[in-house]
């Protein structure tokens, strides 16, 4: 029983980290079809934002809260610059986009190395996130609870924005049928830019959360980018809820297999499961039904 509760929690927690890393990507890759290899570096930028904020403010508790919106702003600014400078010129050339954004990710990594040094830095967790919470005899690390709540909050906010706001309607319309959306008077250019703004901002937020878990170094993003793409692909392109289900499924699968085998084998088996799943259902868990001919 102990093991079940602990491993389910660890799985959900692992899933929430995946979800945070993938949520932004579910917008830019899932909705717009842009393969942004620099998404991991936007996460890294968010993590360094937390580091800088903490050094400026001094207090760990305050700076964690303050750095969330700042990291969103920095991530989204990077995203908008990338979109306006490069991506909009190659929307229908996915391979070029892949190469260009990979180049951008290398540039950003080197920039971080030059500014912050190659050695990892540390962002101490605030006092109120130190240690575990005891519930019914089980102990749950507070940092993991915080990330779980943050991931759920980020998802709910994004889902609500997509469903209930005018902006969300424009994004959905553009995804479903771009020419029809355009003829209906929606500026797809502006919509694209806004989608990228939000997606990249979420990467920044993920970066702040990750400072609670692991090392903050210039290659932080590379550790998460592949998993993030997997989540989006398994979840189904064009679907936010697919990403949520995929992230938690992958998290729980990883933690369960890891518990009964080893971390290396769990990684291999999860990859094998994903490949097998995509053989049966190449479109992912959910698909967007569209009448678009494109």
């Amino acid at each position: 029983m102990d093991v079940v509760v602990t491993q389910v929690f660890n799985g959900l927690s692992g899933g929430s980290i995946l979800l945070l890393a993938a949520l932004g990507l579910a917008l830019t890759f899932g909705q717009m079809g842009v393969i942004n290899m620099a998404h991991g570096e936007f996460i890294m930028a968010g993590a360094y934002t937390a580091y800088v904020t903490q050094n400026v403010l001094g207090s760990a508790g305050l700076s964690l809260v303050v750095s969330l919106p700042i990291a969103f702003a920095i991530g989204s600014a990077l995203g908008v610059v990338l979109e306006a400078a490069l991506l909009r010129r190659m929307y229908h050339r996915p391979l070029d986009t892949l190469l260009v954004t990979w180049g951008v990710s290398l540039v950003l990594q080197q920039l971080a190395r030059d500014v912050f040094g190659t050695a990892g830095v540390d962002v101490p967790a605030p006092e109120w996130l130190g240690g575990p919470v005891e519930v019914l005899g089980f102990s749950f690390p507070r940092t993991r609870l915080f990330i779980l709540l943050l991931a759920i909050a980020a998802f709910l906010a994004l889902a609500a924005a997509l469903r209930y706001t005018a902006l969300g309607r424009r994004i959905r319309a553009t995804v479903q049928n771009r020419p029809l959306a355009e003829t209906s008077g929606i500026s797809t250019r502006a919509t694209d830019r806004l989608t990228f703004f939000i997606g990249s901002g979420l990467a920044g937020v993920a970066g702040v959360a990750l400072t609670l878990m692991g090392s903050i170094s210039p290659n932080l993003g590379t550790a998460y980018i592949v998993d993030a793409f997997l989540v989006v692909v398994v979840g189904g392109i064009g679907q936010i809820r697919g990403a949520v289900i995929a992230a938690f499924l992958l998290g729980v699968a990883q933690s369960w297999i890891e518990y009964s085998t080893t971390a290396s084998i769990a990684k291999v088996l999860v990859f094998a499961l994903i490949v097998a799943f995509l053989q049966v259902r190449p479109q992912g868990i959910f698909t967007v039904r569209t009448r678009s001919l494109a």
Partner: protein
Amino acid sequence: MIGAAALLTVGLVLSACGARVDSADPSGAAAAPSCVDTSGNEIKIGFLNSRSGTMAISENTVFDSLSLAAEQINAAGGVLGKQLQVVAEDGASEPTIFAEKAQKLIRSDCVAAVFGGWTSSSRKAMLPVFESNNALLFYPVQYEGLEASKNIFYTGATTNQQIIPALDYLKEQGVTSLFLVGSDYVFPQTANKIIKAYAAANGIEIRGEEYAPLGHTDFATIVAKVRDAGAGAVFNTLNGDSNVAFFKEYRNLGLTPEQMPVISVSIAEEEVGGIGVDNIEGQLVAWNYYQTIDTPTNQRFVEAFKAKYGENRVTSDPMEAAYTSLWLWKGMVEKAGSFDVAAVQAAADGVTFDAPEGTVTVNGENHHIAKTALIGRIGADGLIHTEWSSGEPIEPDPYLTTYPWASGLAS
């Protein structure tokens, strides 16, 4: 001077066949005569460290301390009256590049000796190059043992100078059970083989053994297993960034050094800052050198290093071993009265140096050096303080032939 075409051929043969051919049969091709130029009042030496790529963070520090040693040796009159002229090459964190650059340093720069390498894979890649050219490499990092080339001097610890003393210390502290956590590659797996043999012979129970892929970032499950196993101590051979995630998780689950100490063999002064002092304070490490060693020799070393590179820099075990390696080479050359490789090898036995870690002595037979083992505790200041010492230098025994329980490990 060797012709460019011949050099190219050697390079092609090496890269085409894989360097292994030469190591399998070192006597097969006669080594070309050395091209080291000893006529002038300068002598060339090579530094071969990863200045770029993933290992750069570690190897740059070794390069810095090697440069300091070269500068000091030149200021003190050089080696056999000749000033050192350093040729620096970048191994780029890539074993094949290490082999190529070693070849270049030996055959085209004609250096008298090469200093550097960090990962075991880089050393293994360079070994056949040094053996087939009959040249010298000084390797400054603790490693998994089970090797003794006559063309390499190993100035970092072998297993009986780091891992076995760490186990002796834990046993002395009354630890009766261990949990092994390591990265999934050669060093942790070899180290854990030795630890398990030691444990079997000393009545220590191994409660669990977990490996994480290099770069693994989520340690929730592994740390949960560690907690549930309730061992007396954790033996940690994780490498790189994984340590950060591991120690953060360890602390987040409320585990403390008092409850279950973690002893690490890959975390030195340089790494403590990135992990966060809060997360690792009070935990144990095993090395042969700490910045805090309170001797005049070490104080001079630390002061000179900080004066050259900045007050906020720290000194660590591999840096000290690299610094020491250059001085040991000077000692060997001056004892031999020659830069000739065979003469240096013949003179090596018994050469000593008053190093920052204490007096070290070269073992002429296996080319390792006798070093004092130190168990350290990480303090709130981010530095490591000696907790236990083997008291005297331990003779190197890379194949563990003097430990009855280790028979069978070397095969």
